[in-house]
């Protein structure tokens, strides 16, 4: 149960970070915290089930791989964005959402 509440707290922290962070890298970190919260929630549910439920485990493993892929794409895009190139409108670091 403590982990379910923990997942909730992390969810809110990630959400808040995503919305208010200024630097784009921080937004990526917030998104990762957010998805970690969801994964934690799923596995904590699996722990409560009787007997131990392995479907959420498989789901979370899939989710972790998907999440690292999206993070990698986001980071590659971020690096391209942050290079000053001509009148590229939005330099990283100062960005409206």
């Amino acid at each position, binding site marked *: 149960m403590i982990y379910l509440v923990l997942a909730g707290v992390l*969810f809110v922290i990630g959400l808040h970070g*995503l919305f208010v962070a200024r630097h*784009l890298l921080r*937004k990526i970190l917030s*998104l990762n915290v*957010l*998805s970690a*919260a*969801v994964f934690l*929630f*799923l596995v904590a*549910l699996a722990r409560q*089930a009787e007997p131990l*439920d392995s*479907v*959420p485990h498989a*789901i979370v493993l*899939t*989710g972790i791989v*998907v999440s690292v*892929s*999206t993070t990698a*794409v*986001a980071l590659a*895009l*971020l690096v*391209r*964005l942050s290079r000053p*190139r*001509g009148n*590229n*409108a*939005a330099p990283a670091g100062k*960005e409206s*959402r």
Partner: protein
Amino acid sequence: MIQPESLVVLLVGLPLLGAILTFVYPRAATAVTAACAAGMLGAASGVAYAVMVGGGWSQDLGGWAPPLGIGWQVDGLSASLLLLTAIVGSAGAAHRAVEGLDQPFFWPLWLFLWGALNALFLGADLFNLYVALEVLALAAVALIAMAGGGALPAAWRYLLASLLGSTVYLMGVALLYGRYGALDLGLIAGALEPDLPSALGAGLICLGLLLKAAVFPLHFWLPSAHGRAPTVVSAALSALVVAAAWYLLVRLWFGPFAGLQGPGPDWLFGLIGTGAMLWGGLLALVQRRLKMLIAYSTVSQLGFGLLVIPLAVGAGAESAWRGAVVLVLAHGLAKAGLFLAAGSIARAHGHDRLDALGGMGAGVVLPWLALVLAGASLIGLPPSGGFLGKWWMLQGALAAGGWVWVAAILLGTLLTAVYVFRMLSVVIRPAAPVPPAGGGGLPGALPAFVLALLALGLGLAAPVLEHLLSGDAMTGGPA
């Protein structure tokens, strides 16, 4: 005769196989894509025909029945959207092939997008749908970013909004799984009770999808992403990707979440839809660039689709349901045609600023013609698909006595007419000198023209559409 079940497998497997081939052998990319497109047009038509003849069906993947396994479901709604995807996907690929840009990674990304869309329209498993949504988002982001420059921030915003949407969606899925121990739509539909975890789970899922569908007021990311992406990508995003999120929302709302329906959520969705219709229409009016105008029009047209939620209950439900689906189909065809035509015009002129574009003249006749025809369908002039959709929706609304929604639809149509006329007022200007073959010539504009014709002719297919969509009125398919 080929089993329709194997046609469905083809619809998901073929684009994914094509994605691998075009990545490994980029030299054969156009040939592979053409083969895939032909296969998918055939398979999607076959599936639609099978649904018309024998009704929808569901199939289990890997021989594992839900709740353990993953299921696919096919009904009139999914079959018609699969067909729309095949048509727009092929037309976009043809347009791209004529453009002849040297970006070899376009093809695998395009096919991944296509495969993800097909998987989405078939999926009947909440988590599988999540993975398909992620494939869709990643492919779309990379495709938007291909335009370079100003498209990169747009791609970034799209990526962020999309990832937030899918994470929120997954949280909702987790809640529903904890409540019912199932991910299958049909099983959840059968077990749903209106309690707190279900409502919260459904709420989070809908919120995530609204964000992905760029529904007002969560539309902030859409116009720049759709307006700045490469032409064919804009077409696919506006016609298909947004429709996919709408589809999922409607599929869930009338399927597993049907037990949560009530006046409260109905009004909420109705107001959101009306807001989108008006706000998107007003902003489309003040745009200075052709592609941005079309992009804002997507926000507004999506509002019409969302009105299905308050309308498809009670009396007149079936008509409203059919109307909304046809409207989304017609919008997909017309919007893809608009974007492709706008792309041809912009290439011919070297820009797409509305105040400086020349009228219909040598070299850009066909694109402008496509723009006119697609615009007519967007407004809803008979006999277009847009007319048929709005007609059926209005019939449904009148039967249910939903005067507010009738007024909203009419007001939205008026706005659509105004911004489409603003766009078309350029046609009657004197033609500007256009460099010969600057717009890719005739073949470049042909896909746009075909799409516009299809959007216009969709209204004539009313009996077919009625038959196709009659089997699954609002039940979200075989439960």
